């Protein structure tokens, strides 16, 4: 028996809107979380999620049922995030560390919008530290770390999503983990 998503994707391809709504429901929070951590900005995260579902909808006929649906949808979302970060970099050169705010580069200083949900207010100091550490991760480690820790993916799945060898994913996880460790230890 095919996984639920695959069956839903098939129904959606035949024009069943409810099936697609089901897919949206299953993935919208996960993708939003991914996009928010990648871009560090709520509005951009929403845009990425919308764009991802639009692309999925338009390309349902190209979905290869031999690969996991989650791999496919995460690949689209991750690529959109990486594209945005690249474009941003080109414009503002956000990678340059600011001298006033030690250890914070432009990504961390991008204004996130005014809406501060309750979950944000309840964040502990440690959680704020972690958020800051994730935000300052270089892009190539960021995508790997977010997929690994915030989406709970195996190294193999990450390698499928990002289209890179498992050994590369592994190296990036190790470097990302060290990066996070240093950030968190220094602040404690």
């Amino acid at each position: 028996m095919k996984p639920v998503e695959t069956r839903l994707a098939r129904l959606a391809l035949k024009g069943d809107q409810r099936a697609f709504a089901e897919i949206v429901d299953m993935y919208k929070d996960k993708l939003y979380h991914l996009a928010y951590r990648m871009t560090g900005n709520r509005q951009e995260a929403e845009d990425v999620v919308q764009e991802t579902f639009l692309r999925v909808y338009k390309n349902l006929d190209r979905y290869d049922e031999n690969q996991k649906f989650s791999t496919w949808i995460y690949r689209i979302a991750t690529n959109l995030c990486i594209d945005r970060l690249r474009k941003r970099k080109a414009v503002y050169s956000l990678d340059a560390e600011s001298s006033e705010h030690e250890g914070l580069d432009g990504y961390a200083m991008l204004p996130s919008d005014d809406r501060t949900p309750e979950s944000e207010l309840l964040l502990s100091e440690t959680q704020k530290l972690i958020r800051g550490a994730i935000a300052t991760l270089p892009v190539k480690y960021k995508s790997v770390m977010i997929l690994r820790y915030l989406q709970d993916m195996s190294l193999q799945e990450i390698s499928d999503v990002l289209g890179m060898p498992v050994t590369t994913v592994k190296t990036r996880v190790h470097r990302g983990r060290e990066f996070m460790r240093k950030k968190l230890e220094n602040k404690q």
Partner: protein
Amino acid sequence: MKCNVAVVFMHDYLDGDLAREETMQLQKHLGECSSCSNRYESLERTEALVKAFPIEKAPADLGDRIMKSLPSSRRPKAWTSWVRRHPAVSAAALFLVVMLSSFVSMWNQSQELSVSGPDLEHVIIEGKKVIVPEGQKFSGDLVVVNGEVEVLGDLDGNLTVIDGSVTPLASTAHIAGEIKTIDRAVDWFWYKVSSFFGTLAYGS
């Protein structure tokens, strides 16, 4: 065990990717080396903190907004996907359409008189009438489009008349080949096709 090897083992262990044998070696090293054991604790703490990071939920209305932003019809998509799946048939159909339309446009264009043959100095054209005069000898095939033909002399070849007429032959006339009169689109089409293949076959 060297400390740099131990660090690699730590990461592999945290990845759930370290063999039993090596795990034991790592454990032994951590018991002996305080800097490595500190490092391992710090990595483990980081790991736990990051894993426990709360999930950020999407705004409640995001799902509805996504559903509303979708294009309403999938129809045009279905058509293009059919084309993608049957490239050969699509190419053949496209070819047919182009061929047909070019034939139709050629058919509509040809309202003017045109005469073709290898030996045109031996014909006289008066208005819409093409005459092979008495006593003259026209050698080769004569093709006349949109005109009348009157043969008084010798025609040493085929006579083809498209969308026109042939005046009954005078007694002096002599035509060596056959006379073809074509005045319908289908016949004309057939004539074009067969002459096209004739050119291919004989190269003229």
